[in-house]
């Protein structure tokens, strides 16, 4: 599972800034170099490659799910294994694909965007990466254990995940702890870097929005990952040490688990979307050749989301039996938070208005993000209406909502970021032709997969079922075809990356004509050590 590391993309002319390597001897070569690296660029690459391989593993699980749901009846897998596939698909995509990808982008770009030589704590940076392969090898190993892997959904509600869980659940908990610690250490590193290592002249207010959103995300991580650690520790105590936090027999309460999980869960979904806002807010102004509209509003709204996201968690629990006052409270707060979040879309669209727009691949993905994320936002608005949620909850309508927000949301923004910054990382432009193919196939695949789910959900198809009544057959057939199209079109993405690493059209330091931020002042490909001497940043009015 060391995944296919491409020929090291960072072979730079030794003549780059400062050939003297830190350790007295020549820097270690080959695998050892990747194991011991403390350089934020190499660690960024490690995160991204790990995330891409996990994206494919999670994708395979999704294709197994869609294969079984291709048509009524059980043809390929047993319900027990189907539940393991849905659970691990959720866990791998959330914790192993999306979060590490954003962390990788943060590792690569934050030091470059704020003029810092490296992250504040380089060794901690290396450690927090290498925790991830260990954590997820352990999580994937549970599939081979007697009793099978986790089969209780990525939200692992008690008592299904405690009293009625397979014996491998303890390893699931250990794996999640390691992944949690990795995220926490990463967040500490990023906060310390942003707050202390900015180049002189680059004040907090001049930081690009990607750095701002990541700072807010890091604060959310610090506040919320310990709660997840707390919940899974309580699960561990319930399973192995006979306590009854979530076991009604001993005075516990399964609904307490849901409160704790979603108190972590909702800020977690903001953790997965705020960096995407940062990326899109960097890409759209570049290709519209026009400054971002309402930069101040974006910064302030993102900051307020950091706090408001803690007040809405129980809209995931409208049908669990909350009292009326609680349901009303969470309906109102969910509606309130929808405003600062949704309004951002208007800022991006007004940035486009009267711009001068060109449609390279990063811009295509960013525009698809705006359109499809907004559709996910609308279904989110519908779900906020508590009485209607009684009909939507735990159906495929919810599955359609969060996939629209996450796949064209988080994953398209990651792909846009990769296409946008590949020239800086590798010194070559990614191939536009293949990029376009990858884009259009992905957009068609995403919509073909998830749009029919709105209808199967509304018509009454519950979530996480391995087989369904005949009235949902057509929708599932289309979804499954779309899933396979989307899944295989991601191989194109790998082809584009590998080709771009090996060769392709040379890219100048400022690869995109409209680009403004600091990273474009560094030569492409970015040498291993940049900003050894802090750059001179003139505090000009916001670009």
């Amino acid at each position, binding site marked *: 599972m060391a995944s296919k590391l491409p020929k090291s993309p960072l072979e730079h002319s030794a003549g780059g800034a400062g050939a003297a390597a830190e350790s007295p001897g020549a820097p270690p070569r080959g695998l050892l170099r990747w194991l011991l690296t403390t350089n934020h660029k190499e660690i960024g690459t490690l995160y991204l490659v790990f995330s891409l391989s996990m994206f494919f593993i999670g994708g395979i699980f999704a294709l197994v799910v869609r294969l079984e749901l291709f048509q009524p009846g059980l043809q390929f897998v047993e319900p027990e294994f189907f539940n393991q596939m849905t659970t691990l698909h959720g866990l791998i995509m959330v914790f192993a694909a999306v979060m590490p990808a954003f962390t990788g982008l943060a590792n690569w770009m934050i030091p470059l965007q704020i003029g810092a030589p490296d992250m504040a*704590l380089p060794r901690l940076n290396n450690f927090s990466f290498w925790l991830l392969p260990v954590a997820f090898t352990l999580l994937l190993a549970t599939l081979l254990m007697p009793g099978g892997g986790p089969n209780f959904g990525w939200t692992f509600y008690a008592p299904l995940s405690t009293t009625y869980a397979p014996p491998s659940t303890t390893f699931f908990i250990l794996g999640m702890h390691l992944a949690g610690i990795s995220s926490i250490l990463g967040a500490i590193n990023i906060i310390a870097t942003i*707050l202390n*290592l900015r180049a002189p002249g680059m004040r907090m207010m001049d930081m690009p929005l990607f750095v701002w959103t990541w700072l807010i995300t890091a604060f959310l991580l610090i506040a919320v990952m310990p709660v997840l650690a707390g919940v899974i520790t309580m699960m561990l105590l319930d399973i192995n040490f006979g306590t009854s936090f979530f076991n009604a027999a001993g*005075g516990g*309460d399964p609904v307490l688990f849901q409160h*704790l999980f979603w108190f972590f869960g909702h800020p977690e979904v903001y953790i997965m979307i705020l960096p995407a806002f940062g990326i899109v807010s960097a890409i759209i102004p570049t290709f519209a050749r026009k400054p971002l509209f309402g930069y101040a509003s974006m910064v302030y709204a993102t900051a307020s989301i950091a706090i408001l996201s803690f007040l809405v968690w129980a809209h995931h629990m409208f049908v669990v*039996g*909350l*009292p009326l006052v609680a349901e009303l409270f969470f309906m109102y707060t969910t509606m309130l938070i929808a405003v600062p979040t949704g309004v951002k879309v208007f800022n991006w669209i007004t940035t486009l208005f009267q711009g001068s727009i060109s449609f390279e691949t990063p811009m295509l993905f960013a525009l698809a993000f705006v359109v499809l994320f907004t559709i996910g936002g609308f279904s989110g608005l519908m779900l906020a209406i508590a009485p209607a949620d009684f009909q939507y909850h735990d159906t495929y309508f919810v599955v359609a909502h969060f996939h629209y927000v996450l796949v064209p949301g988080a994953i398209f923004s990651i792909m846009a970021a990769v296409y946008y910054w590949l020239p800086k990382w590798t010194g070559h432009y990614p191939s536009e032709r293949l990029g376009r193919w990858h884009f259009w196939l992905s957009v068609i695949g995403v919509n073909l997969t998830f749009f029919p789910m709105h209808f199967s959900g509304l018509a009454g198809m519950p979530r996480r079922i391995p087989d369904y009544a005949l009235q949902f057959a057509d929708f599932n057939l289309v979804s499954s075809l779309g899933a396979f199209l989307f899944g295989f079109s991601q191989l194109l993405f790998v082809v584009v990356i590998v080709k771009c690493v090996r060769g392709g059209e040379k890219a100048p330091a400022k690869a995109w004509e409209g680009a403004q931020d600091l990273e474009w002042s560094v030569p492409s490909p970015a040498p291993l050590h940049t900003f050894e001497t802090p750059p001179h940043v003139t505090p000009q009015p916001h670009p």
Partner: protein
Amino acid sequence: MSPVQRTVSRTLLVLVAMFAFAFALVPLYDVFCRVTGLNGKVDTTAQALVHEGVDESRYVTVQLVTRSGAGLPWRLEVEQRQLRMHPGQTVEVGFTFVNQGAAEQWGRAVPSVTPSQANRHLRKLSCFCFEEQRLAAGERLALPLVFQLDRDLPAEIHTVTLVYTLYPVASGEIARRAPEAQGGEA
């Protein structure tokens, strides 16, 4: 202490605080449930009788339901499954535990009340659900439930359902020993 160390130490402080906060939520949740009657959680301590007179004008139906969970060969019988009372009135109902198993065992009746708004207005003076019970094989143990409903029970509540579910108690968890010498045909 360099600025980086200052930031890191402050962040670590917040981390530890949030981890402790997650565990503090458990007792906080119990308090929150008792105050708002969320999720039908009921008091686990006897409460004093309140003399506020009986509201003769309306009746409230109280349904009593007993259920048995997995792993406990006991049965919980109740004298009458349904009774009508006035808010403010105090009522006593006889319950009988029967251990149908072949061995002595500890068990507990976990209460739950619905609608949850009624929970705040339900005052239990004595209830077997306050502690674990110990029954020898085949033993029958009659225990009363004495409770009172507030006069100011909201008008729209006409029916209150009290559900008791029997669960086994692992010997290690015995919080308080049941009062001794209550066995036999009490």
